[in-house]
Structure formats: structure tokens, C-alpha cells
């Protein structure tokens, strides 16, 4: 795992450094922006990060039998900072209709009180609509870290890599067992 991570981070670093050198060679700020903007969205970073494209096709929402998915106290929400998609027309694993799933996410490690196992939970934001303040706003920060550990950070808009950057709400997917 560590070598994988290192490889990905190195590629990220190389990408960012290449962008900087490209900039130094261009004449105007605008041409620089246009060029690196296209790189980021089109060819550089995003193909590494898309949760929604990785795991495949649509399926029915996960039925919730192990707690109250519209309460901030639900176990999966142990590091969730945001409004609940499950109470905003989506579910634990579905963005509400008409929103966009974030291409990147932060991850929490939450203990399921039903089996006493620790799960890795991916908190993806759903994007491109007003913040869903019809649904509960939750703030839990178990294992949360500042932005120097970006993948564990929950104070930032994770719609940052999407075309539509308005924050709508947050889902909580189980993506791994933390053994």
C-alpha cells in the first residue's frame, strides 16, 4: 500500500511542478490559466481520483438497518462535517437527483457498534446545488486532520475538483475495513 501511495503522490507532485515550469514560460496570466486549467480538468489530476467512475454503475440505495441514517449520531458519520444527503433526497451512498458526485473525498475511520469493526468511510460531497440546509448539519471529527493531511480533512469543499463547485450535501460510503 505504501508504495502505491508514494507512487500516486509522486505523480501528483510531478504534475504540480510541471505546471509551475509551464507557467514560467508563458507570457500572460490568462494564457497560463487557460492552459493549466485544461490540464487539470482534462488530462492531469482527475483520472487518478474519480470515485464515481471507479466503482461502476448505479444500483439501489443501501438499505440502512444498523442505525438512523438521518441523525448526526449515526456511526458512519464519525468524521462528517456537512449536511446529510440521506435527508436531502439522496441516501448514504447516493447523491440527490440533479447533483454531481464529488470526484474526490475525505476518509474517516468509524467503528460500527453492531460488529465492533472499524470501517473506512469515504465522505463524498454532492455538488452543483445550494447547500441543503433542509437537512441536518452534522459536525464530527474523529480522526480528522488539518489540510496537511488532505485526505483526512473535512473543513474544505470536496466539490473542489468538479465542474460545478457549489456544495450541496455529503454521503458516507463504506470503502474498506480498517483491520
Amino acid at each position, binding site marked *: *500500500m*505504501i508504495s*502505491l*501511495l508514494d507512487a*500516486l*503522490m509522486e505523480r501528483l507532485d510531478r504534475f504540480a511542478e510541471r505546471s509551475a515550469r509551464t507557467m514560467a514560460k508563458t507570457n500572460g496570466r490568462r494564457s497560463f490559466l487557460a492552459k493549466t486549467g485544461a490540464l487539470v480538468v482534462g488530462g492531469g489530476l482527475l*483520472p*487518478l*481520483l*474519480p*470515485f*464515481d467512475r*471507479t*466503482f461502476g*454503475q*448505479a*444500483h439501489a*440505495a*443501501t438499505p440502512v438497518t444498523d442505525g438512523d441514517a438521518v441523525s448526526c449520531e449515526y456511526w458512519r458519520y464519525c468524521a462528517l462535517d456537512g449536511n446529510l444527503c440521506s*435527508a*436531502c*433526497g*439522496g*441516501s448514504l*451512498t*447516493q*447523491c*440527490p*437527483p*440533479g*447533483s*454531481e*458526485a464529488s470526484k474526490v*473525498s*475525505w*476518509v*474517516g*475511520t468509524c467503528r460500527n457498534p453492531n460488529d465492533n469493526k*472499524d470501517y*473506512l468511510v*469515504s465522505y*463524498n460531497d454532492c455538488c*452543483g*446545488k*445550494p447547500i*441543503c*440546509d*433542509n*437537512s441536518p448539519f452534522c459536525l464530527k471529527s474523529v*480522526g480528522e486532520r488539518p489540510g496537511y*493531511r*488532505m*485526505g483526512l480533512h473535512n473543513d474544505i469543499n470536496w466539490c473542489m475538483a468538479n465542474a460545478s463547485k457549489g456544495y450541496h450535501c455529503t454521503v458516507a*460510503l*463504506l*470503502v*474498506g*475495513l*480498517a*483491520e
Partner: protein
Amino acid sequence: MVQLDKLALCAVLAVVAAPAMAQQADFKPETLTVKETIDPGPNVLVYQQEWKGAGSIAVFGKDDLAFKGLMASGSMGQMLVSPDGKTAYSQSTFMKRITYGDIEHVVQVYDVAKLTPVKEVSLPAKAAMTLGYQPMFQASADGKFLYVQNGTPAASVTVVDVAKGSVTAEIPTPGCWGIYPSAAGAYKFSTICGTGIFQTYAVTADGAPAGKTDSARIFDVNSDPIFISGVRVGGDLLFASFNGTLYRLSDAEAAVKTVETIKITDGVDGKWAPGGYAMMGYAEKAGVLFVAMHPDAGNGSHKNPAEEIWAYDLKAKKILSRSAVEHVASFAISADEAPVLFGLTEDPKMIRYTSDPKAGFALTKTGEAKVTGFPFVAQVTP
């Protein structure tokens, strides 16, 4: 903790990491999707108006107030919903710097099932930026044209051809306010004027202005001003005055005509009067009018939220029931034989009331949901 954090970072960076994690144990990672359409069934749509940002249309299940999601709109907007509930429209304001700078007035057309805007139409930047009132944003009976109330403060109406996605006309309506499209027949809309008359503006099949007709004086603007939130009763229009007079009007001919006037508060103590924003709803099947009422009415009380909602029999001309309600400022009702009423309060929240036909359509609270912003317009869909 070191190992966990590394795993977490891998998960974020995805693609290669995910299969690796899946191997860890007998565990299947969940997949992230976007729900394609809202759950089926009748809905209540509420316009959640904002004055310094994005307003929205909130969709709730009619039966259980389950929140189905929202559609994004702009500032100081209005909402309109097609009779079949499948298409919604908002008209709102976008500025370059949200509260200043270059301004756009835009109509957005939404696919309600998908909660998605499917079309935009740019308007002359003259639309009335008012609190939510249905007569500010209307459609022709067949849905071909949208009518947008302008106020600069000069009054006019922008006509939009929805299919073409373009503006066909701006029709000056000086001194008049509110848009009441004809329910049938040729394209036209009526409007309430400050002289106490109604004017009716004909519109061609191409959306061009085709002349106007004045009514005789309908109401006394000084002694008995009417609210602009009218309802359809049969083919007629019905308005209430600040004093509790109902004006039943026919717009079937070229000019609006009075059919009858009814005073609903006669014989009732306590100085009750209608009040609020959308303060009336007519249940066609039952022939019953619901009116939001407040006591101790006087100069300036006409926006007081309701303390009671009255069910009024328009044929028998009598009060069937008076139900105490929580400070309802606007409401919408369903088309059922036992109408369901959705009240919007200034907290703000939405309260669901069922009515009992056997008890004079008395109301019972059966639900409550959080709404946001300034919610003054709601519509129930089939």
C-alpha cells in the same frame, strides 16, 4: 494509526487502491452513485427565496413530507409549477458579484423528476424582485407562454415562449399589478389596477400584444383594497379584500366583470380578517374555500399570519369550520375531496394539515418539515 491513515489516503486517491482494499477481507466496498429521479408520488413544491444568494425549489412528498431534494435558483425569485407537476419554473436574479454588478434576470425550466434545470431563458432585466407571490410569474393555460411581472417601478409583463426559449414581447401595464392568465380560450391575461379596475391584455398566438380592455370599477382601492393572491373558482377569479369581502369575477369575456361579492365575516365577532401572502385556497371538488384569518384586524394587519383557517362554503355562503393554526403566512391545498393543506410559517417551516369533510373540513395537523429562506409560495402536484 499510521497504517490506518495511509489506508485512508489511498482510498482518497482511489483507482488502484480500491481493489487492494477489497482484498483485505470479506468486504465489498460500496459504490457512489447519483440518484436518477426522485421517488414517485404527489409532491408539494416550496419556493425558498433568498435575498443574498441562491434560492431553491424544495420538493416534499405530499403524503409524508419526505424531503426529496431541491432545485437551484437565483436571488429574489419566484416559482411556477405545471399543472401535471412534471415541470417547474423559477424566475430570479443573478448578479456578477451576487449583490452587485452586472445583472441577469433568468427563467429556469426544471425537470422535476430529475431535479435538474433543462433550459434557461434570459429576460429583460426588469422583473419585479418581490417576495414570493404567484401572480408575479404565471403561464398561459396551455403552458405555451410564461408571463413575468416587471417592475422598474413601471409595471409591464414580459411574455416568454417556452418552447422557443425566447421573449416575444414586453407589454406595458402601467399602474396595474399581478398576472391572471385566461383559463381557456384565446391568450390573454388580466391585471389589477390602482384605479380599482382590471385590465385585460390580449396576446396573439405568436406572443405579441393584441390590445387591452378595461373593466368597469371592480373595487374601491381606498375603502376595500384587495389582495393580489387570487384563486380560480370554476372558471371565475376570486379575490379577497383586506376587510374580508370576496370578489368573484368573470374573465371569460374581453373585460373582467363582477359575478358577485360576499362578505365572509358578517356576524362574526372579534374583527377577523384575511391576512398573509397566499391566504386563500379553493377546493374545487368540495366547493370549499379556505381562508387564512387573523383577529383584531386593523390598518396594517393585512400581512398578519393566520390564527385560524376558515373553511367557507361558497354556495351556501357560510362558514363550515374554523381551525386554529400555527401562524400560517401562506398556504397551498391539494385537489382531493378531503383537501390537504400545507401552511408556511415565518419560522420558517411547513405544516401539513388534513381536513375532515364530515366536520366542515376542519383541519388537523399531521406533519411538519423544515424549510429555509423566505418561503411564501407552495404548490401541490398530482
